[in-house]
């Protein structure tokens, strides 16, 4: 009897153990709130659980990781661009694609891209936009030094540009404001610079440069002062000239391999001395000259927000004797840092090392600050993609 009772109690105890195990394994805790990974509202957890402090700026941190200040805006090769919008609205950049001349708009925040025009300009290789981005001048035939140019106007809601053509062998051109386009072409007297009125298509000569290999630096209106110097070469001397109307003046700047960026108050220029490239800043108001700590390459620079600053892409490296020729030939490439150069002292502050920030070698050209003043835009010469850097 005692043995039976002992066996029965043993079996019951065993069944109870199995039931307890089944309960714990399958049912215990399934309908309870998670204890240590709760992401619900504050205070939803039981007392005694440690709640990690809320980060001060969690949203900013997340956004920064997704949208770095230095970022690539296009994968398409770009031949010209212009910032549209303002600091208070969403910024976008209107750009022209190499080869096709199609016009796109890319949102600088989301990166979304919209095609604004599918009017094709065959073998397009250079585009210049008006400040609003609504008018664009495009050059086709990318292996020719001169060709007619197409002027197009974007029409809201339409996929085609309204176009007119300047049927001359145009050398250089730029849309300098909403109403004027400057262009140059060869004559027997030299390079004639003309102004084309975008409003009524009238066309008139402005001045003629008495030589042919010109690097033009047009002002912001046809009545502004325009500058010109012979194209640079490390073995040939260059000189800076200015034009107001048709009157030519010699600026006190000269040198071998000369290239210059000219503003109201300063001439920032590079030249070669004893086979070394050096850069200087000539103060037009005081007549003094400062040495620049950076090599200034006009294609890599744009005026800053004040008249005393310049933003430039530059790599601190030893330049070859053949500079800038070898860079223009595409045999030399840089990995640039973006600098803010003080034109009064010649000193510079690094803003961003593009290689460290992006992991890409960026050889900056066509540096431009947007009208909003909140970003720098530029093309990577290595692949012609468009980039921006938020200031």
């Amino acid at each position, binding site marked *: 009897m005692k043995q039976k009772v002992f066996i029965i109690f043993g079996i019951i105890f065993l069944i109870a153990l199995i039931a307890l195990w089944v309960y714990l394994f399958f049912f215990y805790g399934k309908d309870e709130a998670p204890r240590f990974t709760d992401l619900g509202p504050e205070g939803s957890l039981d007392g005694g659980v440690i709640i990690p402090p809320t980060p001060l700026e969690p949203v900013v941190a997340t956004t920064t990781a997704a949208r770095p200040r230095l970022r690539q805006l296009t994968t398409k090769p770009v031949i010209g661009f212009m910032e549209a919008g303002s600091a208070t609205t969403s910024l976008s950049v209107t750009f022209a694609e*190499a*080869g096709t001349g199609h016009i796109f708009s890319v949102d600088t925040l989301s990166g979304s891209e919209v095609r604004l025009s599918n009017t094709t300009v065959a073998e397009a290789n250079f585009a210049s936009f008006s400040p609003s981005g609504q008018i664009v001048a495009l050059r086709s035939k990318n*292996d020719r030094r001169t060709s007619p140019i197409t002027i197009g106007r974007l029409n809201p809601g339409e996929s085609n540009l309204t176009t007119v053509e300047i049927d001359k062998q145009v050398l250089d051109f730029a849309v300098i404001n909403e109403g004027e386009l400057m262009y140059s072409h060869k004559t027997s007297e030299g390079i004639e610079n003309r102004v084309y009125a975008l409003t009524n298509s009238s066309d008139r000569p402005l001045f003629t440069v*008495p030589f042919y290999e010109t690097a033009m630096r047009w002002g912001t209106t046809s009545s502004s002062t325009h500058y010109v110097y012979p194209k640079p070469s490390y073995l040939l001397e260059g000189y800076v000239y200015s034009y107001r109307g048709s009157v030519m003046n010699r600026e*006190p700047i000269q040198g071998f391999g000369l290239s210059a960026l000219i503003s109201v108050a300063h001439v920032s220029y590079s030249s070669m001395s004893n086979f070394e490239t050096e850069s200087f800043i000539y103060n037009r108001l005081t007549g003094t000259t400062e040495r620049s700590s950076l090599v200034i390459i006009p294609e890599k620079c744009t005026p800053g927000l004040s008249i005393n600053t310049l933003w430039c892409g530059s790599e601190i490296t030893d330049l070859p004797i053949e500079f800038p020729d070898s860079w*223009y*030939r595409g045999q030399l490439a840089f990995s640039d840092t973006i600098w803010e150069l003080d034109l009064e002292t010649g000193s510079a502050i690094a803003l961003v090392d593009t290689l460290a920030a992006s992991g890409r070698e960026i050889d900056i050209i066509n540096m431009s600050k947007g009208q909003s003043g909140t970003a720098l835009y530029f093309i990577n010469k290595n692949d012609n993609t468009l980039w921006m850097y938020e200031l």
Partner: protein
Amino acid sequence: MVDIDMKYIALTIVAIIFPYFALAQAVQFGDQGLAIDLEPAFPQPGQAFTATANDYSLPIQGTTIRWSINGELRNEYLNERVIPGTAPLLGKEMTIKLEVSLPTGGSVSIERTIAPVNLDIILEPQTRTPAFFKGRGLPSIGSKINATAIVNGNKVLPSSLIYTWRLNSTVLESGSIQGRNNISFSMPQGRRATLVLDVRELNGEPLAQRIIDVPSVTPSISFYEISTLYGFKQKAVGTAVPLLGDSITLRAEPYNLDLATYNEPDHLEWKIAGVRTQSSAGNPYEITLAATGGSGRVPVSFHVRNTVQLLQGSQGSFDITY
């Protein structure tokens, strides 16, 4: 006896008086003998120069040399034969006065006014560079070069001046020509040539002189890929070019080759693996290479030359990997 004495007395008087007479003549012609030499002879605006006292044509040497600049006596240059200076900016003048005291008393002086002139010479070699190249081509032996002179930013009309151009001591155009502010010439043999330009006013008065080196380089070739969609890629290819798709089109760009040779070359050839090949593209400077299966590395070379002017030519090569 008296006659002889009288002769000696007369000779002695002449011997004593003559130097003074000669000195009087020197002083009389001293202004013509004294000069200020500048180096360079025609300093440009803002350019450093040296002024040298040239009194060697005076019959006697001066004892004290004084310099004044713009009317101000400069004591720091007392008795200096050579003084430094900086030419004023364009449109301004500087007057240098040299005064030399003579051992016999008195002095001679001369003034020289420096009104600097910007005489720019712009060289435009007529040699090949591609359209995207933002620089200037360079001369090579036998290539044509255009030179343009600009005086004071064209403030002075070229037609009101007389120009004399010399290349390595050879006067171009056989002499001076009024209004001839531009000229063409062929690059002579050698690594450089010297171009000298003298500019005079119509009355023959010298206005400015400029001497420049004209460099000469050897033409060289770079190769560029051409995309069917985007056209010319502006980055030169390296020595090894990967054939990533079915085919690739490349263009040879002979930099600094005389344009006449570029446009009508006597000899132009592509070679693939050492075998002469016809250019498959319409442009003889382009070649299209297509993959035929397999893999490997094949040398491709390009050669262009003027067979009359043999230095007008260049060759280059790269390897295509597929």
